[in-house]
């Protein structure tokens, strides 16, 4: 086999003596990325490779009467056409938690865009033309699109004969999972309330819209196995789902992480992985699949749209008395991460507030809408939008300042969650609010100068819709709480292999994990940790693959905590062995070798008093010290299925936002002027990356506030805007300055005291923007995104 071009190379960094944790070291993949040489999954190339193409359903819910592949197979240049009947084993479904997703549709399609057949051909156009020649006859079925049609009388079942581990406890087969959380006595508490506010809120279906489309290259190997170069969030989870379908043992499916062009949850589920492998094994040739943007909208799950009904009560001085809520998440046709999203939405439904008496219920539905699963914020986003709208409503009713009301009810370390879990690390909710509120306000009318009006700074931007007419400013606040790591008893571990040796006269560390670098900067942080722990300057980060143990998913804000923790742990084990070697070799020369506290710094072994004992180069000589070890955070517990009680979460993460917006109140167009954020990060391992994460997360929250929504036709369950022409994400002209105030209050349970940071800023950004728009317009606004129609009474 000729070499595969685009296979990831090692990243080596470090020529200075610094670069440990806490510094803003630069990305080791930065040069490759700015020169265009970084190999993303869609850049992979192999001699003689074929192109894979997927034929997808054109209807949302239908029986497949027949599939005729004859003409497609006869097309010159076509090497294979496969349908369900061609699958090699009896394992023909997959799924993150519930294996309900067919590799290729079997007898039925359950959502618009479901894979029905796959083609391999010598050119993408040949493959497309062949796919178009596959004739599929559908007999359409009624569509399940909302709670009414899912659980009402005579509802059509999306999945008949369910036997998954949630099917026993759900009230209806079209409910994937239900989680109540009950604490205290709401009926009694309601009597103490002087004020009660209720609201029904709707949250749209958001797309991750990562820029690098789903892609990969499957290369058949001589031993009958396959090597998949893939952009994913979790190699080992993919492997666990792929291998059984192929009928191969896991060691014959080699997986290497290719460059990942963003993820945000959208790569937690499989997309084209199995299809590429099937075609490669069938044809004996490497097969590349690259989705285009249209297909990408069908190729991954989205953020659950939600309907949320809340009731908050408070005494007249603003203390929350009770809270009830019901959160209905639309999981779409397949389960994906829906059960875990339900767990998050319910357990975080109160927000970062203390309320003793709560009655909460969250459910996820099976419908014929597009499948929904993981996206940054994961269930906590929808809840935060609703409870923060409620807090503003309550403040308004009480005549209180909305920041003060929040601070009055803010949780602190030691608070008890509605699940009964005690928050045992800092929870500076009131302080974060104080900080965002204290930031200087952006000047008024920035769009006006002596030279006239700059429309680029006004609502409507370049479209020249206002020169100041109708423009009203509004300010809004929000704060949120997000869990970090996988919850509810999941064995959430990571693995790191760390090696230390002398290369070219210098002690060098090599870090090998299966962590998916999706842009977050994990590779930067791993090198920093190795420098801090091992006192080296040169650190090589090996490509992520399945030749090392699982790192878990790059999601749930967990990688710096968990794989960072694993790297730290393995480094510590390496250090112990290195020091053992040192004691063996040099112990007799200096009494300090007997001390417990020896450090590796600047390429040397030093005492905690700073005395140099020896150079690592001399110590190691020809020895290679290598450790691969798993590392786990504190275990969590499942939530009780009736009461929701349980220590379900690992760690909590908090962020607060202040949004300043200018609304063209006549046209309903919004310009976000500034979106300030304060977040507690525990310990910023790389401050530059931390700020980048916060600004990026904030902007995704802005997107769902004012523009982003996958629109599904309620009559047909078909997606109406699967393109970047009609699914809009913020441009640089929509995105304001985002000043960030980073607080570092250590969590003693976490490595270096760090706190997972990626998701919290996506939570509070959306409700802050909505609050600001409400302030500018005086409208109630119970849905996100808010569209011009909603601001102008023309919906």
């Amino acid at each position, binding site marked *: 086999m000729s070499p595969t071009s685009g296979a990831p190379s090692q990243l080596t960094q470090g020529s200075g003596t610094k670069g440990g944790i806490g510094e803003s070291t630069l990305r080791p993949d930065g040069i490759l990325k700015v020169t265009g040489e970084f190999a993303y999954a869609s850049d992979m190339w192999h001699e003689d490779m074929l192109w894979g193409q997927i034929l997808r359903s054109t209807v949302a819910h239908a029986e497949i009467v027949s599939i005729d592949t004859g003409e497609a197979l006869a097309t010159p240049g076509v090497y294979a056409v496969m349908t369900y009947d061609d699958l090699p084993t009896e394992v023909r479904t997959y799924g993150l938690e519930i294996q309900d997703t067919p590799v290729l549709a079997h007898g039925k399609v359950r959502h618009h865009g479901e894979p029905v057949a796959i083609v391999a051909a010598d050119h993408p156009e040949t493959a497309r033309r062949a796919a178009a020649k596959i004739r599929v006859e559908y007999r359409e079925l009624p569509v399940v699109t909302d709670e009414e049609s899912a659980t009402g009388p005579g509802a059509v079942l999306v999945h008949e004969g369910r036997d998954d581990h949630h099917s026993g406890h759900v009230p209806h087969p079209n409910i994937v999972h239900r989680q109540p959380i009950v604490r205290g006595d709401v009926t009694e508490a309601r009597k103490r309330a002087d004020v009660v506010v209720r609201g029904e809120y709707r949250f749209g279906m958001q797309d991750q819209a990562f820029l690098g489309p789903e892609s990969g290259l499957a290369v058949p190997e001589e031993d009958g196995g396959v090597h998949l170069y893939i952009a994913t969030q979790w190699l080992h989870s993919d492997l666990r789902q792929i291998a059984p379908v192929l009928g191969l043992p896991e060691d014959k499916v080699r997986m290497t992480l290719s460059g990942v062009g963003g993820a945000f949850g959208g790569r937690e589920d499989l997309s084209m992985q199995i299809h590429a492998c099937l075609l490669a094994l069938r044809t004996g040739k490497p097969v590349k699949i690259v989705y285009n943007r249209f297909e990408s909208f069908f190729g991954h799950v989205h953020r659950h749209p939600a309907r949320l009904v809340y009731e908050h009560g408070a005494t007249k001085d603003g203390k929350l008395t009770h809270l009830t809520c019901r959160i209905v998440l639309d999981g779409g046709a397949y389960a994906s991460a829906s059960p875990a999203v339900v767990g998050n939405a319910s357990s975080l439904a109160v927000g970062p507030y203390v309320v003793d008496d709560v009655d909460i219920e969250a459910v996820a539905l099976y419908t014929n809408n597009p499948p929904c699963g993981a996206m940054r914020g994961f269930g906590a986003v929808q809840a935060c939008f609703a409870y923060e709208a409620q807090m503003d409503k309550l403040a308004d009713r009480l005549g209180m300042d909305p920041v003060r009301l929040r601070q009055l009810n803010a949780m602190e370390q030691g608070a008890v969650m509605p699940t009964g879990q005690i928050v045992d690390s800092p929870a500076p909710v009131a302080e974060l609010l104080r900080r965002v509120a204290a930031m200087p306000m952006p000047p008024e009318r920035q769009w006006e100068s002596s030279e006239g009006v700059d429309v680029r700074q006004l609502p409507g931007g370049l*479209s020249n819709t206002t020169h100041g007419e109708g423009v009203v400013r509004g300010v809004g606040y929000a704060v949120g709480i997000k869990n970090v790591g996988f919850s509810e008893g999941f064995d959430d571990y990571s693995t790191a292999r760390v090696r230390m040796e002398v290369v070219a006269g210098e002690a060098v560390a090599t870090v090998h994990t299966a962590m998916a670098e999706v842009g977050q900067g994990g590779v930067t942080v791993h090198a920093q940790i190795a420098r801090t722990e091992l006192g080296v300057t040169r650190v090589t980060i090996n490509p992520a693959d399945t030749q090392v143990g699982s790192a878990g998913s790059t999601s749930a804000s967990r990688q710096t905590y968990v794989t960072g923790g694993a790297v730290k742990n393995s480094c510590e084990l390496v250090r112990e062995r290195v020091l053992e070697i040192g004691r063996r070799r040099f112990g007799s020369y200096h009494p300090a070798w007997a001390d417990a506290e020896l450090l590796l710094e600047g390429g040397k072994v030093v005492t905690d008093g700073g005395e140099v004992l020896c150079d690592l180069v001399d110590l190691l000589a020809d020895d290679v010290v290598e450790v691969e070890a798993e590392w786990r955070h504190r275990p969590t517990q499942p939530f009780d299925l009736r009461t929701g009680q349980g220590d379900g979460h690992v760690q909590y993460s908090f962020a607060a936002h202040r949004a300043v917006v200018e609304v063209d109140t006549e046209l309903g167009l919004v310009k976000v002027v500034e979106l300030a954020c304060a977040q507690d990060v525990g310990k910023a391992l790389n401050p530059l990356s931390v700020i980048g994460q916060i600004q990026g997360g904030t902007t995704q929250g802005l997107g769902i506030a004012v523009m982003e929504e996958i629109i599904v036709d309620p009559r047909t369950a078909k997606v109406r805007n699967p393109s970047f022409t009609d699914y809009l994400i913020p441009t640089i002209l929509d995105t304001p300055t985002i000043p960030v105030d980073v607080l570092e209050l250590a969590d003693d349970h976490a490595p270096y005291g760090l706190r997972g940071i990626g998701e919290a800023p996506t939570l509070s950004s959306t409700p802050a923007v909505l609050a600001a728009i409400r302030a500018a317009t005086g409208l109630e606004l119970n849905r996100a995104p808010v569209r011009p*129609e909603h601001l102008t009474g023309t919906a």
Partner: protein
Amino acid sequence: MDFLRPASWEEALAAKAEHPTAVPIAGGTDVMVEINFDHCRPEYLLDLTRIGDLYEWEVGDESVRLGASVPYTRIMERLRGELPGLALASHTVASPQIRNRGGVGGNLGTASPAGDAHPALLAAGAEVEAESVRGTRRIPIDDFYTGVKRNALAPDELIRAVHVTKADGPQQYAKVGTRNAMVIAVCAFGLALHPRTRSVRTGVGSAAPTPVRARTAEEFLAAALDEGGFWENGKVITPSVVKQFADLCAGACNPIDDVRGTASYRRHAVGVLARRTLTWTWESYRGSRRLSEGAA
């Protein structure tokens, strides 16, 4: 698929005559998306980017003869004085990259109701220079749009240029999108004051099956300005007149509900844009009057 690369206009006309189904391609903004997403597979692609003449413009006494492929960037930068409405419209087209390559010919050829140039052309007054091996004709812009994504071109015709009437008064253009850049119009509005003829012209985009003029509104406003002696006295237009003009513009819409916006919103927004653009152009007219009077 065949790729035809005529080196001259004559060759292009001959190719189009021989292959009337050939799809002309210049900036590629519409055609390439259709091909990339497998929405169409034309038998022939007729590349017009080798024909230098299409990238040139000529400023005449009455009008600008604008080559079909003159990029929007050029129009924004170089024709702001002669064609202010079209220059403003050009600035709202997609992204800088697309403005660097796309031209008015593409907008006219596709004839989408959402094309950004149409309202500006309707308001300014223009003629499309269409040519085939049979000869040349000039199609008044008012007769050019014949249906949703349909125009008055014959199958063997190509757009060579558009003759846009030079501004004799202030012009404005505004477009509503749900994003502050790079957005397809939810609706758009172009307005041109023509002090020389004491007339007003409008163009409405994305609010009817084709780009349209709000003729009743134009006639109403022209009459009201005349009656009130506004052209001469340069006074602020009576608010009730502005309002009625805006209402009539909204009334000229025949929009649909789609993923980009509701019909009701489109009608409402066109009214707001009509009011605002009238205010801006009229203020500008009054300003220029004061200047010329001051100079006199």
